[in-house]
């Protein structure tokens, strides 16, 4: 019988603990990993977040001049790895947790950036912003004796390999000649 009395007392004393949702809402605590938001102005299109996303909620579609980043919240597990790896802090987790939707389209976010051409072969290889970011990080440093940094960096990976190969061969020949 004592169990019944104790339970009755608990039921009466503790009052109401549930919320009258949606008019009453529980406030989200600080640091809640809610909906991840990608800042359009800040993103440089490096693709690090895409590489690291475990469920592939972040995907990239590259076509000619366009570089499209797509974030599908239906797959997002809110792990926070994208926020961790972003070099320019473009990804932030808001405290919004009410993400239910009746359409799939409402859960997709797209971000489109422009890509640049390789100065040697003309293929599109990276985004304009990523290129400018690299340049701004390294200022006037250059590692190619004859060319400026901007020219060197504006080569696609294939042409970079060729240029490196040529430059190394030239340097080697020069050193050998000097001996």
């Amino acid at each position: 019988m004592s169990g019944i009395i104790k339970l009755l007392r608990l039921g009466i004393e503790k009052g109401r603990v549930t919320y009258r949702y949606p008019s009453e809402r529980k406030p989200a605590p600080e640091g809640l990993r809610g909906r991840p938001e990608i800042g359009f102005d800040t993103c440089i299109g490096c693709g690090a977040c895409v590489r690291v996303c475990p469920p592939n909620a972040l995907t990239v579609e590259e076509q000619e001049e366009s570089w499209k980043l797509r974030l599908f919240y239906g797959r997002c597990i809110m792990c926070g790895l994208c926020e961790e790896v972003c070099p320019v802090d473009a990804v932030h987790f808001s405290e919004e947790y009410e993400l239910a939707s009746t359409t799939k389209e409402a859960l997709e976010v797209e971000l489109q950036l422009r890509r640049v051409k390789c100065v040697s072969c003309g293929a599109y290889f990276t985004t304009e912003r990523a290129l400018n970011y690299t340049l701004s990080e390294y200022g006037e440093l250059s590692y190619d004796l004859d060319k400026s940094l901007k020219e060197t960096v504006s080569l696609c990976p294939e042409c970079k390999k060729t240029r490196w190969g040529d430059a190394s061969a030239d340097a080697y020949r020069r050193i050998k000649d000097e001996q």
Partner: protein
Amino acid sequence: MERNIVEEIRGRFPKEVTATSNLRGDIWLVELRKEHLPAVIEYAHNTLGGNLLTMVATDRVDTEDDYLIDYVLGWYRQGQIIVFRTTARRGDESFTSVTPMVPCADWYERETKEQLGLMPVGHPNPRKLLMADDWPDDVFPMRKGFKLDTQIPTKERSSFPFEAPEDAPMFNVIPYGPYHFAIHEPIYFRFHADGERIRGVDLRAGFNYRGLEKIAETRLTYETIPFMAERVCGICGSAHAEAYSRALEGAASIEPPERAKWIRVAMLEMERIHSHLLWLGVASHMVGFDTGLMQFWRVRDKVMSLAELLTGNRKLYGMIVPGGVRRDIREDKRKVALKVVQEVQTEYEELLSAVLDLDTLKRRISGVGHLSNEEARRHSVTGPMARGSGVDMDVRRDFPYEAYGSLEFKTPVEPGGDVLARTLIRANDTLESIKIMRQVLEGIPGGSVHKPIDYIPPDVTSVGLVEGPRGTDAHYLITGRDNTVYRWRVRAPTYANLPAAKLMLEGETLADASIIIGSIDPCISCAERIVIVNMKSGVEKVVSGEDLGRRPI
């Protein structure tokens, strides 16, 4: 009583054991030829009292032209783990089954057969375990050659060969599952019931097989696997992430920083409190005591809010990764956490004394679902199931990891063996966890919380053990070359505990079936398949969606 188990085994089987070595610390490797497996494993398990932790087979056909077969056994009192390793050459894909003598190896060997195609010769009933009924018998998903995106056509008709007791036609077949309000996840127990008494039980699992191990090997990296590991189970996720991280850190021979270890303990214990409160609520619901459900979950909500404050999410914390933890506990949050833990303790103790005084509840759980000490040992059950039958085992105390070595806590053990014993153990476990959390939050050392891992050597075998809320969580992995694992095997504690359900259910009434199955604290996961049995002809058929509306479920 310190004795080296490896020496004992080598002394008993001098010719059969081909090599022994130390993998790391307390993990040893004993190699033998596959013909001698049953004798050695039987001796190690039955005579020396080892607990079968897991059994893994790996496809090494591309590199070594063979398959690795590992049986991992653990001795809690001595604090030793032994990996019994043997190989099966390509072309001779079989091994001698140890199930006839060690019944708890049943599920592992069946899984090996269907996943890798290694036939356990002598196994009493090598039926499918995890794969769908209409999965072809000659396609083995865990072989390296099987591509993840292979399409397998489904069949209209397929069936699963259930076992029935001898006088089956006299009894009613009652399908408990795969869809049942009490169990919260699909698992299919088939009861042969005589009125309300259960006379025969058979079990079909695998409704929630998601192929995580294959995904980890092919698509994920060392960094992202802990997030997958956390989602193996919704309630004990951190334990899985921890076991994986420990296994990987063991393979790389690194230790996370001190503060990280203490935070990990806080995460694990918080999860244990949350899991046990959830279970107490669910168990109350199963015996019709809904107020217990509401009240226990009211207290549990406090714990979840605490988790939300500390980790950023109510469940699936995402905190434990190899190398340490991802977030630090700020000083102001630590103070709030201490206050919340104290509140939880007061409310919980108040509620527990009220519920345990309730006669109508105690009557329902005393004396049902008996599992004797002998049976518990023989079936290598783990966690509260084992401790409820008097088997004293606790990874935190016997294989101290993270900060447990410096913390004070007790491990409750009850001799009763019935549902009441298991309930008391989980209830007391929660109190101990609250004590541990308080110690952690008060005495946590300073320092960094993550040490990046530079290099992980390939081809290293490692085992990570963690005491999850349901028992021992054993993760076995072999490191690979492309920044991912070569083989990863998750052995959740329910995998070991479920087969023992059959023993507990026979002879009990249908009314108690729910709470008995619930007392295992099953943590399966979900899929959707319905099998019906035509009671007159015994023919089975898989029912499609449209048909469902017309048939009794």
